[in-house]
């Protein structure tokens, strides 16, 4: 399968280079400019994206992509496609532009504002969040990003009883992995001497993280001493809040699959094989703490997704249902952001992009047919275009 894919890729690449070679003498400069304007924007900084860019693709530099999404944050199928296309492009879509515009205008001295993105499966919630993450990176936010809560609640690497809190469960390996992700995403900010730990953290008799130590030390400790990783994440969340309140940094919290933090049936089991409620997982505490409104200089964007919960309960994609009573009360008042299917313009632009990448062969009436077949659902459109 993999081999087939790679040979296919080579053939495509050779074909594309051949056609480009053959076409070059005939094409003229203005024509390319015009083509660029329709579905691709040269504005590659999300700081400047406005409503005018909706439906257009922009390119992310590979090093940025590596910093943001090395340890997750993009769907696997999309990752494969970016590899095939030899570039990572995001479409500028309304929900992301909306949130970015809000983030620009928010008064950061006021309590943190929470956005909840919702929408049907495959509508591009995660990719919209990726776009916003890029914006947060560009505008020097401290990024607290959880690529997929479902990884913790539904297929965690290992679980152990918490030493400090009676009845709580630690997911230490996952916590340490997340700390690496955090460190990687904020590599450029963590060197800031302003970011200090506000209080002593005593891990055991010998190991402590003293007050005024740099935040990196706390993160490093969690990565090196996996046994304490979960506690470290909770402490880190609290420290980040304190730093933000003190005005030392602006924080952007992004959690994908947030509703898994409230879904009672996890796949985590205690030693007696009892199902653990998410509220009994130490990591939950940290991210619930960060999505409260009792701090400022922060914004939280969370995604509620049907896939994050058990298959039998995937009834509705709306936020109140997915969050449940408890979750709704926790997030309230939040700003719901709908991520809808492609508009005709977006679909056209997406197909143009695929055609430009030589991913699909142009055929008359192709766009209309694919619109109906995919019901404008971005993920389904991608699947339909794979064999074309």
């Amino acid at each position, binding site marked *: 399968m993999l081999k087939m894919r790679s040979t296919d890729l080579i053939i495509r690449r050779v074909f594309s280079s051949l056609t480009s070679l053959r076409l070059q003498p005939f094409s003229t400069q203005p024509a390319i400019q015009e083509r660029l304007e329709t579905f691709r924007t040269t504005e590659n900084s999300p700081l400047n994206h406005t409503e005018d860019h909706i439906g257009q693709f922009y390119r992310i530099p590979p090093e940025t992509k590596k910093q943001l999404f090395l340890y997750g944050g993009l769907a696997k199928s999309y990752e494969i496609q970016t590899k095939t296309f030899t570039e990572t492009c995001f479409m500028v879509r309304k929900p992301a532009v909306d949130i970015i515009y809000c983030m620009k205008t928010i008064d950061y001295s006021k309590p943190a504002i929470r956005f909840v993105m919702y929408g049907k499966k495959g509508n591009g919630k995660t990719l919209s969040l990726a776009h916003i993450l890029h914006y947060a990176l560009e505008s020097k936010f401290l990024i607290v990003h959880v690529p997929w809560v479902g990884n913790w609640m539904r297929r965690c690497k290992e679980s152990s009883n918490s030493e400090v809190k009676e009845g709580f469960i630690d997911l230490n390996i996952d916590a340490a992995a997340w700390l690496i992700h955090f460190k990687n995403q904020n590599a450029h900010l963590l060197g800031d001497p302003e970011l200090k730990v506000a209080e002593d953290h005593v891990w055991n008799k010998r190991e402590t993280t003293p007050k005024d130590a740099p935040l990196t030390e706390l993160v490093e400790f969690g990565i090196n001493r996996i046994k304490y990783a979960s506690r470290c994440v909770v402490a880190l969340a609290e420290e980040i809040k304190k730093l933000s309140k003190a005005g030392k940094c602006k924080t952007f919290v992004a959690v994908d699959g947030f509703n898994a933090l409230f879904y009672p049936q996890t796949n985590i089991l205690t030693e007696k094989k009892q199902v653990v409620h998410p509220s009994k997982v130490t990591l939950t505490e940290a991210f619930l703490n960060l999505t409260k409104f009792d701090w400022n200089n922060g914004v939280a964007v969370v995604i509620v997704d049907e896939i994050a919960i058990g298959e039998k309960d995937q009834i509705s994609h*709306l936020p*109140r249902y997915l969050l449940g009573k408890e979750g709704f*009360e926790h997030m309230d008042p939040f700003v719901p952001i709908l991520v809808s299917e492609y508009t005709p313009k977006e679909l056209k632009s997406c197909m143009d992009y695929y055609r430009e990448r030589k991913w699909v062969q142009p055929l008359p009436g192709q766009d209309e047919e694919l619109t109906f077949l995919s019901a404008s659902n971005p993920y389904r459109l991608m699947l339909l275009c794979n064999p074309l």
Partner: protein
Amino acid sequence: MATVTRLYRQQIFRPSYILSRHLAEDTEFRVLNLKTTRSQPVQRKKLKKPDVLPPRSYQMPVDQDWGSVWPGPRSFHPATVPLPIRQGYVDKGAPPGKYGNAELMKIPNFLHLTPPVIKRQCEALKRFCTPWPRGLETDSKCEDHFPVEVASSNYCYSSPSIRDPMARIVTVKVKLSRIPLDEHAKDKFLRLVGDRYNESTDMLTIVTDRCPLRKQNYDYAMYLLTALFHESWRVEAWEKLKSEADMEYYDWKVSASKKSIETLFGKEHTDITHADTYSQTVDALMNEGESEYSVTKYGEAVRQMLQLPQ
């Protein structure tokens, strides 16, 4: 063996018959007639049908007074009804005609209640009627003056007993809006009556059938109505223990949502601008169920309250 006995019996019991034949045909050789077949078969008597008059309907004039031909309720009679009626089903062909058709006799008919007959009977009854009370011309006026509707049924048929047990059942209907209740009392009233209240028509229906007589059932229904009314106005000590989970609807004023926005803004909800639209949208979201529309409305209200661009 069996044939021998039969032969023997015949000779025993029919000796005179054989003898007579012998006398009549003395010239011929005697024949032993074992089968006793008669030379001439006896003619059977034909059943004579009595003479029947042709159906009466053949002689009916077109302008006859139908009311006197068919004066009372009666089961169908094909000769009296001058209509070519067919009723029933056969696999092939038309439905059977009216003669000798049990299907037509089984079903009740209203041939005695034709419009002119009804008119005539009403005319005759008119002199026993009193005028319709003034002020009750329309249904809505009747409802205004007589909010409680009591219904019971009389049964009339020919059986050894003229009493029907179903006649005891009394149905009392009243609109809930006509009963003076406050918010608490209404809530309690609805919990007490349960499914006897129809929300779409705002109608409370009490059916009583536990007593043997209609009068008793009626009294019991009235007692129930009175007891319900007074009981729902009474506030018991344990009613203060009602928590959010016991609420029959989402009340924003006692909700966690109100608490959270009050802590968020650090002031009472009455002082927060746009908090009223927000509270309405939360109420709608919770009570009317979640839909794309209610979530959008909620989002708009939140944006307004938090002063975010729409």
